[in-house]
């Protein structure tokens, strides 16, 4: 391997990609499905937490402290701790990723809702909108761009952390990386780790572009 030139290495790497193309694509789709599902769950739970806590100081601080604490748990440990609760494969990974994804969404939901102009809310109230109508028709649409920004951050974090999920037999490019880890020293190791890493980067960029477009489409032209 030491005698290999960079050119030879590249040729071999591309041959590897060609050989494992189907595999790479399938694992990639699994990785995307895993992240998409976790982000969706994080968004639903995170927005709900944000909506219920943004008005009062204490609950708001607790929500941010707890979801922040989730992020400090080493992912390796959390995935393994999930096994008794969920078994192995997809479920522990999705549960753990959902927890990791909460903080940016909860934080941005609270920030977005608190930044809505008080005069706008007061005029909605003065027109006879109930608290629920105000939230759904005025506050959430106005906070939406900030919430979407949180979802994008969550997505980027989860695309990366999802690779560790392979430790509990989860899907995604983590399987390539852990395979590579198991064969350190053999020529295939580098190819496996590198292809897994590149796959993660491609997915991260893809998701970010999709969310940017989606965010734009779902935000009113009046506040863009």
């Amino acid at each position, binding site marked *: 391997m030491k005698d290999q030139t960079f050119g030879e290495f590249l040729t071999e790497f591309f041959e590897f990609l060609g050989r494992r193309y189907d595999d790479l694509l399938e694992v990639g789709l699994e990785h995307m499905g895993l992240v998409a599902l976790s982000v969706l769950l994080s968004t639903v739970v995170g927005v709900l937490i944000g909506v219920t806590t943004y008005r009062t100081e204490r609950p708001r601080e607790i929500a941010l402290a707890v979801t922040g604490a989730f992020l400090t748990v080493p992912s390796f440990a959390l995935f393994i701790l999930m096994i008794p609760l969920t078994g192995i494969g997809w479920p522990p990974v999705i549960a753990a990723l959902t927890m990791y994804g909460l903080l940016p969404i909860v934080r941005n939901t609270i920030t977005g809702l608190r930044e809505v*102009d008080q*005069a*706008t*809310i*007061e*005029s*909605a*109230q*003065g*027109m*006879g*909108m*109930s608290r629920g*109508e105000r939230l759904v028709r*005025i506050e959430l*649409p*106005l906070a939406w761009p900030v919430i979407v920004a949180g979802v994008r951050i969550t997505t980027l974090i989860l695309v990366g952390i999802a690779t560790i999920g392979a430790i509990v037999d989860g899907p995604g490019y983590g399987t390539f990386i852990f395979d590579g880890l198991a064969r350190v020293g053999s020529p295939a190791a580098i190819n496996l780790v590198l292809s897994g890493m590149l796959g993660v980067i491609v997915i991260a960029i893809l998701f970010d572009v999709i969310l940017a477009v989606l965010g734009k489409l779902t*935000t*009113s*032209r*009046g*506040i863009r």
Partner: protein
Amino acid sequence: MTDPSAANTPATAPGKIMIKLENLGKQYPKEPKPAVDNLTLEIPEGEIVILVGPSGCGKTTTMKMINRIIEPTSGRIILDGEDVTKADPDQLRRKIGYVIQQIGLFPHMTIAENIATVPKLLGWDKKKIDARIDELLQTVSMAPETYRNRYPKQLSGGQRQRVGVARALSGDPAVMLMDEPFGAIDPITRDRLQNEFLRLQAEVRKTIVFVTHDIDEAIKMGDRIAILQEGSRIAQYDTPEQILTAPANDFVADFIGRGASLKRLNLSRVRDIQLSEWPTVQLGDDHAKVVETLRASDKGFALVLDEQRRPRRWVSAPDLQRGAGRALDEIGLPPEAIVEPQATLNDALNELITANYSVAIVVDASGSYQGIVDIDSINEAIRTMRTDARARARVGLDTDSADEAGQVRR
């Protein structure tokens, strides 16, 4: 005015009372004094009642208790004969138009969607809502096809304010609450919007409670003014004329400030006063005729009118000498300071001060000459107003019952 109920009942024979505040109070926890202290106030149907006072006097709190954005801690609110102190606040608010200083348009909704808010809450069908949107945009002089689908950020401050008013009118409420609605707008636009609003109000005849800290705005906009002291205590509740000419106490006099007489000039219009006579000549008259006219009067100059009696020129005796043989519209000075009968005396005074001959020419809508306003006519008008107001105040003092006091003004 020693009897508080007499002071808080309109001094004009009221029609129907639309809003009645009975011993209304707001005590915030941990505050030593109530923000609103036992306020009783009657607001007649179809009038603009201004709550005015120094900042912190409780005027905004008072207004916001009417639609219960702020809940009163004591007293009752009677709206159109019905006690709404405990009614469902959302249902109540849909029947009350609400305009605040920051306007508070919904930035993510189009102008049409903004205006449709209350009709939607009231459950109108789409056709009726669409028609209402167009009607209201026209009412506030904004072309529906241009503005319907715009967003608030695409409008100027003045246009946003108009949309705010249109939105508050959308559910056709009988009552409107306006909290410094023109406060955040530049003076020129504000003046225009105030005039537009008064014109609109002449059509729709809503009962309006209007909060401002600006006594000039209060005088201009109000059918009645309640001047409030700390704790929303009423210092005087009366028509603008009466407040300016017969302030009830030192607080009111201080609050009106200097120049009450000048402010009063905003309340009378040129059509209400006796115009002065002035020598006039026709455009085709020869100079001899003009000299004769000038000799016959004590004025030093005559107004030249054309066939339609439109003012064309001022000419004086020296002009005639210098311009011997020339047509009357080629000598002298062009007419200036031309006002119409609906102009206020303040406008007329402003014009005549800056005019060369110190008089304002009054013409009707077609431009035809009606008469002259000079400083004497304005003087006379001020004197009359003062005498009338004193007489009214005297009768008000002699009368015990609010009803009788109410008869005085009409």
